[in-house]
Each structure stands twice: as structure tokens, then as C-alpha cells.
């Protein structure tokens, strides 16, 4: 999947760059939570909590087909997405598996949003998320 972000880098690559190379699964889980919170802040005002929750659940469902460990309780019509539910699941995996699952999840979400509102608007809406994550990662990088 080659979902592009505004910088011309795939969402997967972008998220990978957000995580230090030697990160353990707990750090990856943190990065995932921070990124989802960023998406939440950008999209909820526009599409509502339920709108985002529906897209999030669908992305989880699709990603779980290739990463079966990523299965969360099925709620037919959630009132809001609970991203913290991902943290324990990610922590139980090896760092490599957690990173692979998380990047697939973001790519899937990005593709899903693109299929609904088109790549150009998706890029426009998600720009603050990726731009913010980039600068954050630069600031937080110097971890031992």
C-alpha cells in the first residue's frame, strides 16, 4: 500500500520515522496513541466522534485480517473511539510485530478515508497530523 502524505512519504514510512529505531513495543504503543490522538483532534470536529469511531473500527477490522492479534471488542455503533484499547495489545507483541501492525493500521485508515473523501481532501485534512508528528519526532528523538 502506498498511501502518500503531504511530504510525499508513505504513511507507513512516516509513522516508522516517528518511532526510534530501538524502540520497544511499549514505546511504539505510546507513539500509536499519540498519533491517534492527533487524528482525533483533527477529524472529530469535522466528522464527529461517531464518524471517526466508525472509520477507526473499520480500519481495525481490516488490519486484523493480516495481524490477527489486533482484535478489539466489536461495538456495532461506538459513540467514540477508544484508542487506549490498542496499548495493551501492542505491548504484548514483539517490537517488530507491533510496528508492522501499527503502520498497517494507519495506512488502512488513510486509505479508507481516501476512498470516502478522496486522496486530495484526505491529504488536506490529515496534513496537521503528519506535520505535527514530524516536528514532535524531531523534538523527542534524542532518547537513549
Amino acid at each position, binding site marked *: 500500500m502506498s498511501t502518500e502524505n503531504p511530504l510525499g512519504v508513505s504513511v507507513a514510512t512516516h509513522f516508522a520515522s516517528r518511532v526510534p529505531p530501538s524502540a520497544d513495543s511499549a514505546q511504539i504503543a505510546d507513539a500509536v496513541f499519540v498519533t491517534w490522538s492527533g487524528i482525533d483532534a483533527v477529524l472529530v470536529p*469535522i*466528522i*464527529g*466522534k*461517531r*464518524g471517526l469511531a466508525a472509520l477507526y473500527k473499520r480500519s481495525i477490522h481490516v488490519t486484523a485480517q493480516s495481524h490477527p492479534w489486533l482484535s478489539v471488542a466489536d461495538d456495532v455503533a461506538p459513540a467514540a473511539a477508544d484508542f487506549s484499547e490498542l496499548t495493551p495489545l501492542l505491548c504484548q507483541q514483539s517490537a517488530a510485530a507491533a510496528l508492522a501492525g501499527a503502520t498497517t493500521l494507519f495506512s488502512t485508515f488513510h486509505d479508507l478515508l481516501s476512498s*470516502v473523501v478522496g486522496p486530495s*481532501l484526505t491529504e*488536506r485534512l490529515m496534513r496537521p497530523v503528519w506535520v505535527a508528528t514530524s516536528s514532535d519526532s524531531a523534538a523527542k528523538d534524542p532518547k537513549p
Partner: protein
Amino acid sequence: MNTKVTINRLSTGVPGLDEVLGGGLPEFSFNLIAGQPGCGKTTLAHQIMFALATPERPALYFTVLGEPPLKMLRYQQQFDFFDTEAVTRAIRFINLSEEAMAGDLDRVLRRIVEEVTTHGPSLVFVDSFRSVVLANAAQQTAHDPRTNLQSFVQQLGMLMTSWQATTFLIGEYFDETDANPVFTVADGLIWLRQSVMRNSVVRKMEIMKMRGQPTLPGLHTFRIDPSGVRVFAPITALPPGEAQPGSMPPATPPASSPTSPATSNSRVPMGVPHLDEMMGGGLPRGYSLLVAGPSGSGKSILAAAFLAEGARLGETGVIAVFEQHPNRSRNRLVTELIASGQVGVVDSRAPDLSIDEIVMLLLGEIRRLKATRVVIDSLSSFELSVAPTFREDFRESMSRLVKAMAGAGVTMLMTSELEDRYTDLRFSPYGTAFLTDAIIVQRYIEVDSRLRRVMAVVKVRASAHSDELREFHIEDDGIHIGSKLVDHEGLLGGRPTRKAVAGLTRSDPERGLL
């Protein structure tokens, strides 16, 4: 010193809407866009928003419970006006479903106030208002829902005007007969409708209210196509300069005043030898001419000659055709003129046309080409192309069309299919004959077991013209007008008889009367 407040009028960016509104949208007004589901409210609102919003004049679009925002974004971006870059830069979509679901209007209002305070928008849209009302109704216990709603709308209206925002409430629930308090509070009320008649659906817009502005009364047709909403304002609404073609090509004399064409000596050559003489020197410039005749009598050929003559003199023309297979039916001469760019085509095969739409298309082409000659071929197929709902008013609409063309200063030729009725001297099936300034009629006659054609100039307003019935032939190079059939009489009866020599007539007296 003038101490009156000056109200800025915002240009809506919707073709034709500013005219219908009476000069644009008053700044800081509080407007309703109402109508049944599917009639184009959200599209209209988006089109206005994308036209007006800039980073300096940002817009807030509140989505409530109606259309899910994701779907709205999905479908609205199909229109040309949707500019992705404007989203978040000049336009902010805000979802209020949580507040609305709670059914608490105060909470909805509070949230709107918060967002307006934060972003300081110049434009505010609330879509759809129905959900606000329903949420309110569902929540009602002690209060009268009406009172609550009215107070909500009043507060919102007050607030937005004070915050210097032009506001739109979009809703499908309004019942026109209902004395809804929202109507009283609103400064503007734009009502969209879909008029259904037989198999056709025509979209119509009515400006039921626009404070302080001379709006155009009546139902105005509009169309939604990939570019968005286009309103077909009646031609009288267009500023005078709009309807005039720019400047005349150098080869032609200036157009006569449309209101008094007869005062001008300027005549337009028809391109058919001898026809100009029959018309007293050509068709007076700015006149409309009806060419009526039965199928195959040569009306379109005459029309083509009219355009070709214009092209020869350096004039440009426009032809409106309404045939199902225009390329097949179009004659060679016209095809060449179109290919050379000397004649523009209005070839609308869109279903459910309105006459105002055709007028707009014609004026657009006239302006583009600075055209001086217009042909409508034919009125009969035009009538078939027009949506059934307009057919009842066909004559009134034709009158508007003729006036619009006169206003544009063009000389127009229309053809009309005429059933051959030998007992009835009619020139047009619509009673449009009186609308036009000149009429030429073509007929078939039977002479010596052959169908032959005759032509006569029936009318040229305020001008002398021939009263002769002249035989004509159609050759490869066009129409050739011959002589009168002096030795025959009863020609209009379709079966002329040779005149008796010494004053004795053998003609059928009844036919001869025609």
C-alpha cells in the same frame, strides 16, 4: 451627508443567483435555504461558501444531524467549485452531532458561540436545521418547543449579525404554509423546489424574502451540473449591458435601437436572390422573422442561407438546434459555418429545458461571438425539448425570448413546422406569429401532378413588402425564387387551377377564397 447604512452585497458565485436576489446577498444577513430533500440546498450552500470564503473571510460550516459529514464531503467534492485547499484554510467544517443528539438547543447554541468566538468567521452555515428542530422537539418536556426554537433562532440571528457574519440555516422541514417563527426572524428566505410533471422534473428557486432588496418574484428554474448550481434568471433581470453583444464586426452597420427597429433603414440581406426585394429590401435589422412551412419545404435551407450571407458579410451568427441527431440532420452549409467558427451552436439536448435556460445559452454564444444573426431551427423541436411544465406557458416564454433577442440587438430567424392545411391559413401552431416582426410562409402546391413549392412574404412590420406568391426551387446551391404563377389561381388551396381566359373561372370557389 448620507448617514444611511451601506449594506454590502456579496456576490454569491452562483450564476444567475445575484440577479434573482436583486443584486447579491446582503452582508451580515441571516438567511434560510429551505426545500425538500434532494433539491440542492447543501450544494447551493457549498457553492456560495466556496465562492465567498477566503482566509481573511473564513467560513464555518456546522453539520448537525442531517447528512453525515463524511458523505457530504464525499459528494460535494464532485462539483467543480469544491476546492480542497480551501478546506481548513478558509473553510472549517464543524460537527455538532453530539450537542444535537443531547437535544439541548442551549448547548448547540453555546457550541456555535464558542466556535464563532474562536474563529471569527464571516460566513456561518448550519446544516441541517431540521435536526436542530427535531432534537429540540424530542427534548421538550415543560417548554413549548416553538418558544424554545424561536428564542434559539432569534439569539442565533442576533448573535451572528453582531458578530458580523452572514449566516445560512439549511433545512428541509419548512412547510411554506406553516407560520414558522424562523421565517419571521430570517432576513432572507430562499426556497428550492422540484416541480414534477409527467416524467419530467424541473428545479425551481423562489426568493420568498430578502429584506431591503428588489428580488425577482416568481419561480426561477435552475440546473445542477458538474459545475454546480446555475440559476436561469429571466432575461429582464440582466443588466442592460449584459444582454448587448460587445461591438459589432466592422463589416456591419451598427444595430438599430431594439425598441424601434422600424426607424432604422438598415436591412439585413437574406442570402436568397430576390427574397430581399420581396421583403422590401431585406429584413430590417433587429427584427425577428418566422419562416413557416410544411416538412421539407426548405425552411432550414433558408435559415442556412441567412447565416451564410451573414458570414459572407463578416457577421457572426448563432444557431440553436434541438434535433436528436444534430450531425445527421444539419445541412452541409451550416456544418461548414460552424467548423469555420463563424457560427456558434446552442445544441442543448439536456432533458427538461426551460426557455430561460435557452435564452441564457443563446446570449452566452451571442456575447462570445459578438453575433448579429440568430437562427432557431426549429420551434417545433424546441417545444418538444422544453419540459412539459413550461409548455403551457410556451407563448409567454417565446415572447420573452423574442424580446431578449431584440434586446441583444440581433436579427433572428425562427423556423416553424406548419401542417399543410388548405382550408386554414395559419402560420404557426403556437400562435407565435403575432410575436414576430416578419413572416415568410412556404407551401406545397400541386401542379400537373407535381409537388411544387411557393413562398410568400406575409408580414414585415412597418415596411412595404411584396404580396406575391412566388414559386421556388431548391438546388444544390440553395433556394432559387422563380416567378409568380400568374396563370394559376387558388394556390393556397393547394390545388391551383389554371385561370380561365376570358374572365371565366374554373376554380373551386371555396378554395379560391383562400
